[in-house]
């Protein structure tokens, strides 16, 4: 009898059930999409923050001072210590290698340019888009990823820069010199001074090199020449030498725990510290894999991303709460309306001898059925919506944790029950005589 009552109610009042069902579906869809976006926004914004470039720098342990003013390096080029280029792929072997978005080595060399050899200019050797492999992993890395604001003009036509992102995702480089070539990029202001344009040849320390493009960075590189690392090493006469390495890594905002000294920790605490992607622990791991190195955070980038990230995450959390609140209210309102309309039915049931408990049970069973159907439909719609938001805004998938499904379903059932409870109580308490007479 109970099952039949519920079944008949759905069969005969399809329109009313549909309205309540739609409200639940929409509410759950909005809630799902918002929760999915909010849980993933930290990761997404973290990747976007990588457009500020590298947040870690690795230098030789025993280095002499940099003497650089206005983009011109005054330090004797062969002075000081170097890192070994052959050690660099090991960066992909650190514990947090999946968080390392990219790295690029730098080797500044002072060279004389022009056929009259009158001008001292800094030439920086680096990777542009270098294919490397570590163990079984193949990857490409270079300035394209660690310095995403660098723009090369006059090579690709429009000078457009491919999106920064995961090393694995990077398409074949367009607009950048080949890392095995002898082509160079000339800084914007240096090119103006030398009156050179892409395609010209430039006399650099006695070599005739082709200018691949003009580099615009808005920083010291505008007065410099940027060349493939191998070329800079040849000019310096030190094969395999690297002066410093810029590393761009996804990190967790630092807290008090992050800044502790790992050498004073107990082994368990140290393991926990080591296995958290703090910028400090990644620096520590870089020092481990690259011999005789000193890794440090670039505070301008590393310190600020934590604040920006926590602000945006906090904001999304509050917006999500508002969305959950609004959808809970919409579901409750729809349920309350649906039940309020059925007072006559309640009156009839009670006049025929049904107890309050039985009547409530029927309504709650209906609510449960509605919540489950609406919850499943809403979850699927919400997942689609979240995917759409992810694709259109971040150009990447928003991952929906499978654990979210039972949570969302539980929330849907709870909110539907809570929304129905008051209305059911009032409907049950209502005098059947008044209800049947149609008063109230």
């Amino acid at each position, binding site marked *: 009898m109970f099952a039949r009552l519920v079944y008949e109610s759905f069969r005969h009042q399809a329109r009313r059930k549909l*309205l309540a069902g739609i409200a639940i579906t929409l509410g759950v869809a*909005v809630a799902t999409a918002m929760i999915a976006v909010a849980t993933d926004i930290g990761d997404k914004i973290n990747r976007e923050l990588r457009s500020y470039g590298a947040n870690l720098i690795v230098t030789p342990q025993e280095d002499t*001072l940099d003497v*650089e003013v206005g983009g011109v390096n005054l330090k004797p080029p062969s002075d000081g210590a170097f890192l070994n280029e052959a050690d660099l792929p090991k960066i992909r072997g650190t514990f947090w290698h999946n968080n390392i978005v990219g790295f690029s080595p730098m080797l500044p060399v002072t060279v004389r340019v022009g056929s009259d050899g009158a001008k001292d200019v800094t030439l920086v050797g680096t990777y542009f888009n270098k294919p490397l492999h570590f163990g079984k992993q193949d990857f490409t890395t270079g300035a394209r990823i660690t310095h995403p604001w660098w723009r090369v003009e006059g090579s690709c036509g429009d000078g457009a820069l491919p999106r920064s992102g995961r090393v694995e995702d990077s398409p074949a480089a367009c607009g950048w010199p080949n890392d095995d070539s002898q082509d160079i990029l000339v800084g914007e202001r240096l090119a103006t001074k030398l009156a050179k344009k892409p395609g010209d040849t430039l006399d650099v320390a006695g070599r005739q090199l082709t200018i691949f493009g003009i580099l615009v960075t808005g920083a010291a590189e505008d007065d410099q020449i940027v060349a493939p690392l191998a070329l800079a090493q040849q000019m310096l006469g030190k094969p395999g030498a690297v002066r410093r390495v810029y590393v761009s890594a996804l990190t967790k905002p630092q807290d008090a725990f992050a800044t502790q000294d790992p050498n004073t920790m107990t082994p368990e605490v140290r393991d926990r510290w080591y296995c958290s992607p703090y910028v400090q622990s990644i620096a520590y791991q870089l020092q481990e894999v690259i011999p005789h190195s000193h890794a440090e955070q670039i505070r*301008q980038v590393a310190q600020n991303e934590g604040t920006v990230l926590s602000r*945006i995450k906090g904001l*999304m959390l509050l917006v*999500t709460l508002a969305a959950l609140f609004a959808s809970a*209210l919409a579901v409750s*309102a729809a349920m309350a309306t649906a039940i309020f309309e059925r007072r006559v039915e309640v009156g009839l049931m009670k006049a025929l001898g049904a107890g309050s408990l039985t009547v409530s049970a029927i309504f709650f069973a209906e609510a449960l059925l509605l919540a489950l159907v609406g919850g499943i439909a809403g979850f699927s719609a919400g997942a689609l919506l979240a995917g759409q938001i992810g694709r259109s805004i971040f150009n990447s998938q928003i991952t929906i944790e499978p654990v979210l499904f039972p949570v969302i379903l539980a929330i849907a059932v709870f909110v539907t029950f809570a929304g129905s409870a008051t209305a059911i109580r009032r409907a049950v308490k209502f005098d059947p005589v008044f209800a049947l007479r149609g008063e109230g």
Partner: protein
Amino acid sequence: MSDIPGTLHAPKQVADRRAQAPHTSMFTRMLLRAAVLRRRRAAAALLAMIVAAAVATAMMNLYVDVQAKLRTEFRNYGANVVVVGKDGQSLPAGALAKVEAAAGPGAKTLAVPFSYAVARTKDGQSVVVVGTDFARARQLNRWWKVSHWPDEPNQALIGMRAANVVSPNRQPFELTFQGKPIELTPAGMLQTGAGEDSRIYLDQSEFQNWTGISPSTIEVAVNGTAAEVESLTRQLAQLLPAADVRPVRQIMEGEANVLNKTRATLYASATLVVLTSALCVLATLMGWVFDRRRDFAIMKALGASERLVNGFFAAEAAAMGAVGAILGFFIGIGVAVWIGRANFHAPVVPRFSIFPYVFAGSVAVALISAILPITMLRRVQPAIILRGE
């Protein structure tokens, strides 16, 4: 009840009261009585209206204001425009004043001068010495980790790596520039992880007395939209023809990237929240109007015209929408201010300019939620409704 003298419902009293009461039109009276007699249902519907309007207001207010708030956060990344003397020359005297004048009196812009020289230590090592204004540099470069800022004459701020060379035990040290010596005491250590670590920072006036070099670089942090930054850059380039004015691409592009994504996400979320609130109003108000089908039927049975009945229900919904919008707007502003305080530690400026949108939106949603059930009821004979079927 009516035979107890003095109660409100005694016919005589009621007649007296009504005689003195201001003569309101039947229309207004019907509107008011409906709300008073069914106050629980009316209160529920109004509450839904208020909550929806409040949530919508808070979202719209945040969407407008958050971008300005985030931009202020982004200024912690430091300068976004750099003014450099052409070919490494010093900037003309008064350049700093010109930059500040161009930025306007709003104090939204921070300009910090830097001058550079290469000095030698006692054992002949070269080291870069920078003259600057410490108070301003401290405000501009918040990421600098400084153990102690110099506050006395001849004190210097020493980069981590420079310290190992010039003053490993924090003892006073001597530098010479073109034969002129200077005795300095280290005030504190500077750590940034970048070029600053290899330098020594001095107060600008002391630096100038010693080397005679005036600032060659002014780093400017402009707090504004990309267009505002660009217009200031162009203005500065005109004012200072001897200088190169350029935006710092690393900062500008990173900021634009993150800001655009955040704005788009917030926009999508705010739209969803506003739509859900509208749905909430729709569900409640439809229930409220549908519930009054008996009134509807009686009015029609008594001979009310279609127009009058529709007008009545529309006016009722519109009134509810308007009251809900006004109350909800102020609550929403409060919520937005609270969110600003909780998340950004700065008050969100109330945007009263969004009030017309909230008001119009609320009234429109209320009207739609009234019209939908009425069109459904219109097809039903009043007699059927009155019979309770």
